[in-house]
């Protein structure tokens, strides 16, 4: 009986996976852990562009995601706040190609936003 139960559980799991794969073929997605984490995060997405000693908040998160995706160094972990116009922002990831050009700093909310919207960051 125990052996049988295991087969049943495995088969039900396989059916579930097959259903998800089938739905994915028709671009029907289901909420994921990534989406759940994004929703649970109460912060707003923060994206900061930095060039030399100048910093600026990029309000259009998707524009930021696009720029992040195009950098060579992806998602380097950083700690510590960045000050923009006198306001301190906590950021966790850095995207850049070199220190001599514009760099992008984001918090986890922005990072998850980019991931959830199909950007390869």
């Amino acid at each position, binding site marked *: 009986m125990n052996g*049988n139960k295991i087969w049943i559980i495995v088969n039900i799991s396989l059916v579930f996976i097959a259903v998800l794969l089938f739905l994915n073929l028709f671009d029907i997605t289901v909420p994921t852990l990534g989406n759940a984490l994004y929703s649970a995060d109460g912060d707003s997405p923060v994206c900061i562009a930095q060039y030399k000693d100048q910093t600026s908040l990029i309000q259009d998160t998707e524009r930021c995601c696009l720029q992040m995706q195009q950098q060579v160094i992806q998602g380097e972990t950083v700690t510590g706040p960045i000050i923009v116009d006198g306001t301190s922002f906590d950021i966790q990831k850095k995207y850049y190609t070199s220190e001599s050009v514009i760099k992008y700093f984001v918090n986890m909310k922005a990072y998850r936003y980019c991931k959830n919207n199909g950007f390869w960051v």
Partner: protein
Amino acid sequence: MKKRGVLKKKNRLPRKVSVYVFFILILLNILLVGVNVAKAQGFFIPSQPQPLVVDGTIDLDDLTLEQKIAQMMVVLGITYNMGAFKKMQLGGIHLHAMKSEDEMRSIITYFQESLEIPFFVTVDLEGCVSPFAYFKEFQSVNEVTSLGESFQKGKTEGKYLSDIGVNVNFAPVVDLHDEIWNCRSFQGTKEDVSELANAYILGLQDEGVIATAKHYPGKTLVIKDPHKFLAAAEITGDDLYPYESLIDKNSVKAIMVSHLITFGEVNSEGKPSDASQRIISGLQRTFDGLIVTDEINMLGIKNFYKSLDEMYIEVFNAGADIVLNFQNDPNEVYHAITVIRDAVDGGIISEERIDASVRKILTAKGFVVKD
């Protein structure tokens, strides 16, 4: 004993069935995974026929409607999507930053291989924005102070880009002020910006690379896009001056139009400028070069429309020649092509409008176009 035997047989049957079901489900899942992976790589996107090119001449009638629409799109040059993008015969690829020049050259070569109509290969090389920054530094435009310096910058960058295989640079920025990035604009008055930009353009285009003045009609680098929505800005004569000056000099070969909603000297009628027929046709009255949209997967422009399909139709109907579509999913890129194809077949967009843009694109690519 008999009862035990019967019981054992009953237990074996369901287990046998379970095992058979297991293997069937495993096979089904493997098949579905395979189909999903194939779909993600654009396997189900149909291949367009290779067009007939005779002595550098293309007959527009030889291109399918889908091919013509595809020529109007520039996408991100991600190698994962290379097969699908080559099948669709899209107009161009935009390069992201890479670790080495060799890597860039290889990717450009792979993309361009076996194509009768080559891709535009585009970059954003502005100085403080550069896809080459990992291995090569370029001067930022806000550090340029003289016409000679600007011309030389254009010439040096043009030679480098041309040598690698890049044929379009989405630069120079001719917005008068850069309060967001703090490095992308030339310094000085509107006259200074215009002259410095012109010098840069002459140098760049002298090396065979198409320059793109951006972001028409201005104010893109001072108005911060509110999160999720498009910004609106009043455009003055000063904002338009660099474009008018460049057009008068007949120098720049391409102009990029922004998503900004504009009023004042030019009015986008409440729409994103690159989706406004009024803005685009106004520009076309004096400028016969290529008109390029800003990238259409930005949140602001997507939120402006009820659906992506509606956005695609509005943007293509507005009149720009090249649409930047940096969508990672090649199936969605192909879907955009079919939406426009259906809009043309349904009379919403005229095929003449598509042909006019494709003619300009093919001419810019060095072909003679026969109608």
